[in-house]
C-alpha cells in the first residue's frame, strides 16, 4: 500500500513534504535551544540579551577545540561546551549587566550589543575569520524511509534537544532553584523580601540559558560542519524572533517558536523562493508585533508606570 502510494506522483510530493518536515525540525530544534536562553533571561530581568547568539558561537568553538585537539567524543564535547558557556554567561552577567541592574533598560540593551561585538571580534582575533570544520564525530549512517532520508546528525540534534528540554522543564518546575527563578520572574522585590537570593538566581538563569546555547553551538558544528566567529549573528536574531513568537518569557513558547521558525524557513525555501527566506522570518516578526505582541503563550501584562 505504502510503496504503491510512493510510486504515484502524489507520493513524490508527499515524500518531498515529509523530507522538508525533517529538515525543518532539525533546524528548528537549534533555534529552540537558542531561543530558550533569550526567553529565560528576558523572563527574569527583562533584558534582550543580544550577546546570546555569540555565546552559542563560543560553544561551537569550545566543542571544536575539545574534539579536534583533545580528540573527545560527542557527549564529553557537549558537556564541556555547556559548562564553559554557563561560566561565560554568568561572567557576562556579573561584569556587564549587574552594575546596570537599576539603570534604564536601553542602557543594558546597548551594553548587550557591546558584549556581542566584543565576543565576536575577540574570537576573530584569536582564531581568524576563516571557516573551520568539525572532525567527524558521528557515524555517517543515514536512515531511509522510502525516499525520506534522515541522517545521524539530525537524530542527535532532535534527541539532544528533547532531552535538554525535559531536564529544563524539571529544573524550572520541580526544584527549589526553579521555584526561585519563577518567583524572581514574577516579582523581584517580593522574592527578595521572602528571602530568595536574587543575584544567585539571576546568575543561575544565565548559566542555564548559556549552557543551552553552547549545546546548540556544538550541534550546529556537527550538523553543518562549518563554524566561524560571526556564525551567531543570524541564528541569534532568528532565535529572538522565535522567542517573541512563542511569547517572550515563556519556556514552552520558546520551544514552539523555535520549531515554527525552523519550519517556516524550510517551507519558504523549499516551496517559495529561497531568496525570500530571511525576509519571510522578519516579516513574520513584524506581523506578530502588530497582531499579538505578547506572542503565542505570553502573558498579557500591563506596563506599570
Amino acid at each position, binding site marked *: 500500500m505504502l510503496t504503491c502510494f510512493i510510486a504515484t506522483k502524489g507520493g*513524490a*510530493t508527499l*515524500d*518531498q513534504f515529509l*523530507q*522538508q518536515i525533517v*529538515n*525543518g525540525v*532539525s*533546524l528548528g530544534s537549534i533555534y529552540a535551544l537558542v531561543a530558550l536562553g533569550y526567553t529565560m533571561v528576558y523572563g527574569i530581568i527583562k533584558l534582550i540579551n543580544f550577546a546570546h547568539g555569540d555565546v552559542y558561537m563560543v560553544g561551537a568553538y569550545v566543542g571544536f577545540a575539545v574534539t579536534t585537539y583533545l580528540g573527545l567524543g560527542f557527549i564529553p564535547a557537549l558537556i564541556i561546551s555547556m559548562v564553559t558557556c554557563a561560566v561565560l554567561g554568568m561572567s557576562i552577567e556579573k561584569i556587564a549587566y549587574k552594575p546596570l541592574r537599576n539603570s534604564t533598560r536601553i542602557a543594558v540593551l546597548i551594553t548587550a550589543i557591546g558584549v556581542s561585538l566584543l565576543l565576536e571580534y575577540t574570537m576573530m582575533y584569536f582564531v581568524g575569520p*576563516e*571557516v*573551520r*570544520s568539525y572532525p*567527524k564525530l558521528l557515524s*555517517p549512517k*543515514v536512515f*531511509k524511509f522510502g525516499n525520506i*532520508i534522515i*541522517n545521524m546528525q539530525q537524530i542527535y540534534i532532535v534527541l539532544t534537544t528533547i532531552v535538554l528540554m525535559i531536564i529544563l522543564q524539571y529544573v524550572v518546575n520541580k526544584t527549589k532553584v526553579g521555584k526561585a527563578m519563577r518567583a524572581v520572574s514574577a516579582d523581584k522585590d517580593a522574592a527578595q523580601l521572602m528571602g530568595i537570593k536574587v543575584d544567585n538566581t539571576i546568575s543561575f538563569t544565565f548559566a542555564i540559558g548559556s549552557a543551552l546555547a553552547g549545546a546548540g553551538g556544538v550541534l*550546529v558544528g556537527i550538523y*553543518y*560542519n*562549518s563554524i*566561524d566567529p*560571526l*556564525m551567531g549573528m*543570524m541564528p541569534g536574531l532568528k532565535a529572538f524572533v522565535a522567542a517573541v513568537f512563542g511569547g517572550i518569557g515563556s519556556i514552552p513558547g520558546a520551544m514552539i517558536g523555535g520549531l515554527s521558525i525552523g519550519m517556516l*524557513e*524550510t*517551507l*519558504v*525555501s*523549499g*516551496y517559495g*523562493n*529561497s*531568496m525570500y*527566506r530571511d525576509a519571510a522570518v522578519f516579516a513574520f516578526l513584524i506581523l506578530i508585533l502588530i497582531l499579538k505582541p505578547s506572542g503565542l503563550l505570553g502573558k498579557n501584562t500591563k506596563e506599570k508606570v
Partner: protein
Amino acid sequence: MSLLIGCGNDAVENGANNNTDKEGIKVGINYELTGGVASYGQSSVDGILMAFDEINEAGGIDGKEIIPVVIDNKSESSEATSVATRLMTQEGVVMCLGPATSGNFMATIPVAQSNGIPVLSSSSTADVGVTIDADGNVYDYAFRLCFNDSFQGVTMANFALNNLNATKAVMITDTSSDYGKGLAKNFKETFEAAGGQLVAEEGYVKDDKDFNAILTSIRGKDFDVIFIPGYYQEAGLIIKQARDLGIDAPILGADGFDSPVLLELAGEEALTDVYFSNHYSSLDEDPLVQDFIASYKEKYGVEPNAFNALGYDLGKWAADAIKRAGSADPDAIRDALAETKGFEGVTGTFDMDENHNPVKSIVVIELKNGVQSSSIKVDPN
C-alpha cells in the same frame, strides 16, 4: 614581510648603481603581502620572482637585468593607488605588476593612465573595470593574463552540454557576489542557447549554512547537473548536504572551488563527480607545466598553486613584452603587450584580444574522492 620590502629597496639601490656600468630594467611589483588576501598576493609574487630569477640567470633581456621593486599594498585599494604612484613617479619603473584582486587592481588604473605606464594583473577576473570601463572603452595601459568570469560560465555550460551530455541543469547561485551573479548569467545564456533547460534557479547569500530545504525541493526534479556559481565556503556545504540527501548528479563550479577548505567542508566521499574550471592543473602533462612544477618545488619546497602559476606566467610575459618592444620605453612596451600572439605559459597559450584580455584555454578539473583525478583543457570558442 620586512624582508621582502627590504629586498625591494636593495634592488632599487642596486639598480641606481648599475645604471652606470650595466643597465637594468625596473619592474614594479604592487601586491597584497599583508592583510585580508595576503595569500593571493604572496603566492603571485613568489611566482613572479621565480620567473625573473630564471630570466636574469639566463642573461637578462638583451643583456639587461630585470630589477623587481616589491612594495606591499596591505590588501587595501587606497594603499594600492599610492604604491602605484610611488613606483611610477619615484622609482621609475617601466611597468607595474599586480595587485592580485580585481578591486585593488582597478584602483591603480587611473594612476597608470595618467603616467602612461602599463599595469598588468595575473588574477583579476572581474568582467568589467579591469581592462575595460563600464561603457566598454578599453583602458590603454591596463592588461590581464587570466580569463574573466564570464568565460568560466560559458565554459562550464559547454562542458555540461558536450562532455556530460546534460540537457537539464539546476543552478544554485551566490547572489551576494558579483562573481556568482556573473557566472550564473553566462552559464544560463550559453546553456539555454544550445537547447539546454534550467529546471530550477535557486539562490543563497554569503555565510548561509542550511541548504537542505533548497536541495530537497531540487531532489524532486528531473535534472542532469547542478551548477554552483560561488565560493568554496558555501559550495562545500551545498555539496555535502546534497550528497547526504542522496543527490548524486554531477556538480559543477568555477575557480571559486579551488581551495583545500572545500575538501574539509564537504568531506572526501561527497567530492566525487565534481568538476570546476581553473587556470591551471598540476595534472597537465605538457612538459612546460611539468618543468615549472619541478623547478618550483626545488625553489620553494611546495607544490605550486594556481596563483603561483599565474604569477610565474605574468613575470615571463612582462619580460617577453620588454624584449619584443626592443626598449624600456613604457609606450613601446604597452604596444608589445597589446600585440602579444601565441605566448606560451604554464596557464595556457594565449593571444591578446582588442580588450586587453587573453584568449586562452581553461582547465576543467574533475574531483574524485576529494582529489584531482583528471583535467581537461578546453580551448576558447
